[in-house]
Structures are given as structure tokens and as C-alpha cells.
């Protein structure tokens, strides 16, 4: 659905000194139909520039891309016609009503039943009662909902969301997340830039960690495994250091250590090997209180990957 190859964007800062800034460097990426792809990166990483390129708002300096089967730079109007975009700031016509705002965009996207589409999405996002009010009187959450409605009015196959829950209160953010989940269920392809790693973890099938270039791309689970492997935590009433040595010699154990009074074991396949470890510990006299998998947050993965990438660049 979205394919890029060596997509690069260089901004020229001044005409005289010919200074350049590489905003996006050789981005090669494939996003499949119906996939929710999370695009993570710090401020200034080039996420918005990437979205702008993929929505034909700005042209690439190098590389190629296709969105929805249309080639960037050659079929830009077709791309714009078939994608929806939620920009970083909602950017509504403040003096106009919510209904008028949507009507304008429905007409510009050549929606056949303008009134029907406007009504449908105003109702779906809980704004129908306020449809005649000027957008200037709306809260931030309401504006964001309206901006989402604007982005999907024309039923685009691919949706680009730039920080969809940024600055929203928890209730509004949840509503937006639920809505995105609903879109996912309907098979829409979603390309989402976000700083909210918990949100990315919950919503995205795959994530790409990005800072000028793509640092890593995979499912959150695979990235965890890639960085940390799989670890199982054994909460014991008392931890005998001899048990650690006893477990370390097992062929399927990568590592065993005590962390904050708990026994943490790195395993390749916990589902297969946990029972044997439990049997061994019980027969050695251990009192097992609880067993669980150590789950690293996406935030840890993200920071680790960015840190590694920075080190690599410096090297």
C-alpha cells in the first residue's frame, strides 16, 4: 500500500551559503494493506516531512515512493485524492461551523453524497449536536475529532495521522484511539506518527523507529526480543544463590541472574522450558510465589535503539 525506496528529502537553508539539512535519508519501507504502522521518532526526526512527502504535499529530493499504487511525483493528484491526512495541528476554519468545515472538504474531495458523509462522521465522532457552532468555540479535543472526520470523509484507503492524540486529555485521547482501532478493524491502512509509545504499542501492527533514517522496523514484540530476548521472572520466597548456578548450566538457559531479589532467566522458548525450571527449583526446595514474563516497555526499546543509533553514527 505504501512503498518507498531510498526516499530522501534535503532542505536548502540559504541560497548564498548553500547550507543543506537532510530531513529524511534513504527511507526504504513497505506498509501492507490494512496495516497500522507506527512511525516513532524524536522531535525534528523528519516524521512530518515523511508524511508530507507521502501525501504529495512536498516532493522528495531523491528516491521513489508509491502510495495506493500511485507514483509519487507523477500521480500526485491521485495520491491526494485517495489518502486522508490528519495534520499535526488541526487547522480548521475557526469562523465557520463544524458542518461547513466538513462540507468544504467533502466537496474538494469530490464526495458524492456530501451532506450524508458530513452527517455520518459528525454523528460518529459525537459532534452532531454542535454542528452549527463555529469551530472557534470548540475545545482542543473537539477540534481534533473534527480534523479526524475531515481526514476520513472521503473514505480514503490510506490514512496518515500525525500525532493524533497529542495534547488531548485522557478521555479524548481514548476516544481517538478507539476510533483508530475501529478504522483498523475496517481494514484501513494507517500510517501514524506518534510520541505516545504506549499508544503505538497498543495500536500498531509494526513500528518503525526513525531519526532522519530508519533505525529499526518490526512488530513491537519482535523488537523486544531482538533487543532483550525473552526473560522470565521467578518470584521466590527466598532466593538461594546456588540455584542460579544450578539453572545456568541448563542448555536452554541463556542467562540467569538475581535482580531485586527475583530470579530473572533469559530463555529462548519460555513456553517449552518454564515447566522444567519450575520442577528443578521446587525439588531444590524453592518456594515459588509467582512466575511471569519480563516485558520491556516500548519506551525502553525506543530509547535503546535511538541511543545505539547515535553511538553508531558517532563511531
Amino acid at each position, binding site marked *: 500500500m505504501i512503498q518507498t525506496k531510498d526516499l530522501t528529502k534535503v532542505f536548502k537553508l540559504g541560497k548564498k551559503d548553500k547550507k543543506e539539512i537532510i530531513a529524511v535519508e534513504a527511507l526504504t519501507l513497505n506498509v501492507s494493506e490494512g496495516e497500522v504502522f507506527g512511525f516513532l521518532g524524536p522531535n525534528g526526526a523528519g516524521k512530518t516531512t515523511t508524511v508530507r512527502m507521502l501525501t504529495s*504535499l512536498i516532493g522528495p529530493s531523491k528516491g521513489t515512493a508509491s502510495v495506493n499504487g500511485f507514483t509519487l511525483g507523477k500521480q500526485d493528484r491521485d495520491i491526494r485524492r485517495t489518502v486522508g491526512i490528519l495534520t499535526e495541528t488541526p487547522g480548521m476554519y475557526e469562523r*465557520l461551523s463544524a458542518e461547513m468545515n466538513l462540507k468544504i472538504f467533502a466537496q474538494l474531495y469530490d464526495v458524492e453524497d456530501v451532506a450524508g458523509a458530513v452527517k455520518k462522521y459528525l454523528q460518529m465522532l459525537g459532534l452532531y449536536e454542535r454542528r452549527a457552532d463555529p469551530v472557534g468555540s470548540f475545545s482542543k479535543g473537539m477540534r481534533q475529532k473534527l480534523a479526524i472526520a475531515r*481526514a476520513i470523509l472521503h473514505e480514503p484507503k490510506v490514512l496518515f495521522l500525525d500525532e493524533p492524540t497529542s495534547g488531548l486529555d485522557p478521555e479524548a485521547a481514548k476516544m481517538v484511539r478507539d476510533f483508530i482501532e475501529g478504522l483498523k478493524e475496517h481494514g484501513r491502512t494507517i500510517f501514524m506518527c506518534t510520541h505516545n509509545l504506549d499508544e503505538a504499542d497498543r495500536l500498531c501492527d509494526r513500528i518503525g523507529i526513525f531519526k532522519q533514517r530508519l533505525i529499526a522496523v518490526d512488530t513491537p514484540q519482535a523488537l523486544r526480543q531482538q533487543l532483550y530476548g525473552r526473560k522470565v521472572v521467578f518470584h521466590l520466597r527466598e532466593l538461594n544463590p546456588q540455584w542460579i548456578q544450578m539453572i545456568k548450566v541448563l542448555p536452554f538457559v541463556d542467562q540467569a541472574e538475581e535482580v531485586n531479589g527475583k530470579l530473572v532467566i533469559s530463555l529462548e522458548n519460555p513456553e517449552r522450558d518454564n515447566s522444567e525450571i519450575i520442577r528443578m527449583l521446587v525439588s531444590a526446595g524453592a518456594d515459588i510465589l509467582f512466575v511471569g514474563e519480563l516485558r520491556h516497555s516500548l519506551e525502553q526499546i525506543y530509547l535503546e535503539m535511538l541511543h545505539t543509533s547515535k553511538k553508531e553514527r558517532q563511531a
Partner: protein
Amino acid sequence: MKHIRTIIAKEWAEVFKNRMVILMLTLLPLLFTLLPLVMLSTMGNAMGDIEGAAADVPAGFLSACEGLNAGECMQIYLVNQFMIMFMIMPIMIPITIASYSIVGEKTTRSLEPLLATPISTVELLAGKSLAAAIPAILVTWAAFGFFLLALPLLGVSAGVRAYIGGPIWLLGVLVLGPLMAIVAVNFALYVSSRVNDPRVAEQISSLVIIPLMAVLFAQLAGVIIINTAFMLIAIGVLILADIGMIYLGAQIFEREAILTRWK
């Protein structure tokens, strides 16, 4: 065409909620229509006094006075200066609307979603230009219509009325005015897409009035005489200028620069 209509409707829905624009659309035409009417009325009451001054009318203008007495000749010479007012109207009004047009969308951040739609640059600029030019042209024509209707009520002679309703004024108000409006609107849109502040956009765009003021002063000084030939030449020049401005406008409207250089 559908997209152009949508942009026009959007611009009008926004613009007509702006008090400054409403004031501009009502006060300016009112003032520029009342001024020549007051002058004609005053002159009509003092016809005897001004007949002597008719000798000061530039020689080149006298051909327009055929069949008129000296007082009437002086009247049409003076009222001719106000024709410029009816040309300033279709410039000043759309400048207020158009100069805010792009930069206003930049400040409210609504330009990016708008440019993300399938609308073409030509459609966008045409919609914005027409949205600014149409009200100005209609208001100017309405003001001129009111001016013509008020003339007999003020006792203006049939000869003077015939001159004002003649080809020079009609070409000026009905043809030259709209052509100038198109130049002004395109210039204002160009400025609006290049600056980051609506006030700066309006101030720079107002510079487009300078050539018209030059014509006014040149006419007052007797350097040029506004007659039918002058009008036809001006119309020809402005048609070329309009074509050039419209072509240039679409060429230099850089979506990317507008989006990425905006801070």
C-alpha cells in the same frame, strides 16, 4: 469548476464574517460615491462662479466639451478626476480580502489540509482571486449605478449626465475597473503567499494603487487626458498584465515553500 466554486463559497463564508471587510465593502463605496455627488451638487449651485474658471481646463480636454457650456465643461473636467475613485474601489476592496487569503490560512494552519486535497494550484488561485474580485466589482458597479441615478436628482444637466454615462466612464468602470481588480488580486495573492503576517501582506499589496494615483496626478496636472483612446490603450495593457499575472501566479505559487518555510 466545482473546486473553484467551493473555494469561492468558503472564502465568502469566512470573509463576510470579518467586520473589516464589511466596513471596506460599505464605507469605501459610500464615500467614493458621495464625494463626486457633493461636488456636482455644490458646483450646480455656484455655476456662475465656476464658468470663469473654465479657462483653466487643459486644452486637450476641450474636445470633450463639445456642445457644452463653459460651466458644464468645468463640471465634467472636475468630475472626471473622480472616475479614478471608481477604479480605486475594485483595487482596494479585493486587496483587503486577497492579501489575507493565503497568509491567513498559514496563520490558522488550515493551508496544509487544504493543499492535501486534490485541488490544483490553478483552481485554488482562481477560487481565491474570484472570491476577492467579484464582491469588489459588484460593489463598484452598484455604487456607479447609484451615482448615475442620483445625478438627475441633483439637477445635473443632461449634457454632463450624457458624458458620465458615455463611453469613457463606462469603459473605465465596467471594463478597466475589473481588469485592474484582477491585477490587484493576483498581486495581493502573490504577496500573501510570500509573507508571514497578514498586516504586512495588506501593506505591501496596497502598493499596487501607486500607478493609479500617478494617473490621477498626471491628469490633474494636465499631462494626460483620459479620453476613449487612452481608455482603450489602458484596457489593452491591462489585459496583457492580467494574463501575465495569472500565468506568473500559478508558476510562482510553490506549495512546498509555502508549507515548509512558514514558521
